[in-house]
């Protein structure tokens, strides 16, 4: 067990804070893409993940993900409430305190759940989404994190996922597809154009996500070392290449380079490099980015062909991007970065074995996450309800669910929502007169 390292600890804690910022960033990325009447609800869906997941994580999530691995499937219940972790303990990694690891892994769970919300934008009930967060995190996220990072069966199998291509992106993407199917299409989709209401928000969100992603990927080295540095470069250059790949498709296929395409391209590259970032060279990272950007751009039209309203393209970006990155490890992994002659992709003379393992891991996570999310979606829909009424949806979910509007633009004819009466918190004296 290595000695506790101040440098490593500082980097992991910093990375955890960077990854935390990704969820508000995602809120803006998604918030800008919905129509103006749903912007607050979209932001709230991410903030609800920020509110619920850390509590669940401390209570039982960390234990299910990292307290050993029962049959390679799920951790135990021995660390409920973070039982047994003390200020001095550094049992998991040795070079950083366990609390730093708990923190770093917590923020991954938050963003993963929040990613799903884009598939059901503008139409999910607040209560339904809250319940889904608790149940999906518990039944899908914590076990899959255990499979890959907690010594579970994917780790045993030898499939590799550095920072969460399967755990985070394929997991969230498959769940998003399931929920989009359960909740159904928005009123008017796809006949009514539902274009993004605030593209500057989308660009701002994409920028924050890119920034935070350096913690996500380079932080996953859980050390301030050469691997973290190589990952940093790969995360930079794959993202750049993916923007180029997406815009190329945009221009060739549709005639315009859109800001939405640039922002989505960045995210698709970040997604695809996530599992691969420590196993490929920077040239490999460029290839992964270009492929991911172009493939994801081509996949956004699938929902129109197959008629499912994945509103903000969680499937095309996270599921497809996650698959691209997970599989391309099988082609582009190189011993000079993996440090293991067994972990070498096809293009470097490795066999089909690694690619096969990657494909198996991806396929199982897709099926598992989809089934869990679909079942949970149906359960919630049939009990407390998961979809808002048509009236709420058409009027605007912000006003109906939150009693707020994202943009209070007072019309020339006066206040749009009534006049102030006596302050609700002030008790009126009998006989007093309202001014």
């Amino acid at each position: 067990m290595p000695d506790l390292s101040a440098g490593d600890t500082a980097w992991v804690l910093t990375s955890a804070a960077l990854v935390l910022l990704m969820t508000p960033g995602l809120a803006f990325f998604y918030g800008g893409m919905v129509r103006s009447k749903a912007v607050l609800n979209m932001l709230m869906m991410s903030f609800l993940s920020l509110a619920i997941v850390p509590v669940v994580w401390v209570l039982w999530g960390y234990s299910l993900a990292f307290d050993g691995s029962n049959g390679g499937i799920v951790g135990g219940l021995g660390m409920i409430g973070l039982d047994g972790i003390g200020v001095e303990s550094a049992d998991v990694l040795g070079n950083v305190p366990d609390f730093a690891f708990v923190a770093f892994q917590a923020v991954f769970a938050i963003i993963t759940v929040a990613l799903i919300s884009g598939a059901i934008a503008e139409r999910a009930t607040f209560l339904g989404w809250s319940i889904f967060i608790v149940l999906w995190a518990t039944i899908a996220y914590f076990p899959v994190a255990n499979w890959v990072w907690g010594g579970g069966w994917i780790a045993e199998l030898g499939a590799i996922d550095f920072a969460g291509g399967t755990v985070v992106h394929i997991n969230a993407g498959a769940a998003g597809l399931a929920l989009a199917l359960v909740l159904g299409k928005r009123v008017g989709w796809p006949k009514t154009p539902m274009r993004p209401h605030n593209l500057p928000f989308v660009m701002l969100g994409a920028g924050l996500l890119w920034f935070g992603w350096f913690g996500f990927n380079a932080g996953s080295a859980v050390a301030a070392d050469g691997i973290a540095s190589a990952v940093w470069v790969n995360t930079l250059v794959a993202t750049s290449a993916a923007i180029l790949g997406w815009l190329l498709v945009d221009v060739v296929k549709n005639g315009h380079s859109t800001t939405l395409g640039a922002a989505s391209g960045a995210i698709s590259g970040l997604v695809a490099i996530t599992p691969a970032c420590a196993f490929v060279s920077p040239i490999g990272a460029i290839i992964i980015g270009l492929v991911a950007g172009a493939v994801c751009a081509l996949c956004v039209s699938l929902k129109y062909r197959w008629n499912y309203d994945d509103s903000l393209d969680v499937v095309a970006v996270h599921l497809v991007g996650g698959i691209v990155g997970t599989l391309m490890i099988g082609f582009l992994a190189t011993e000079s970065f993996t440090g293991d002659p067994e972990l070498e992709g096809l293009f470097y003379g490795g066999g089909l074995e690694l690619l096969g393992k990657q494909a198996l891991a991806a396929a199982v996570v897709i099926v598992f996450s989809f089934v869990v999310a679909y079942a949970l979606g149906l359960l919630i829909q049939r009990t407390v309800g998961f979809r808002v009424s048509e009236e709420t949806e058409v009027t605007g979910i912000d006003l109906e669910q939150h009693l707020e509007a994202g943009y209070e633009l007072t019309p020339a004819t006066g206040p749009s929502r009534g006049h102030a009466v006596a302050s609700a918190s002030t008790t009126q004296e009998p006989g007093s007169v309202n001014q």
Partner: protein
Amino acid sequence: MKLITAVIKPFKLEDVRQALEAFGVAGMTVTDASGYGRQKGHTEVYRGAEYTVDLVPKVRLDIVVADDVADGVVNVIVDAAKTGKIGDGKVWVTSVDTVVRVRTGEGGADAL
């Protein structure tokens, strides 16, 4: 008096306004409008989806002038708004019974 209504391409508004000012027209009302004529709409591809854009953005000008200058004003608008391409717009003229200036109560041509 005549009400001259013109629906033109938005980017021609400034040209038309300057031409009218040079011609001596004292005021106008400008409104953002959308619509289509023989130009019809067009299709756009955005984010993997193809949309038919039926209503094309236009600018609408409403100008009330004295009878004797109406033809001249129409000619000025047509000259300034013309690009020769489809979708340049329309100008039409309607008779007006009464105009009153709110501030002074003046009526008829004096109010213009």
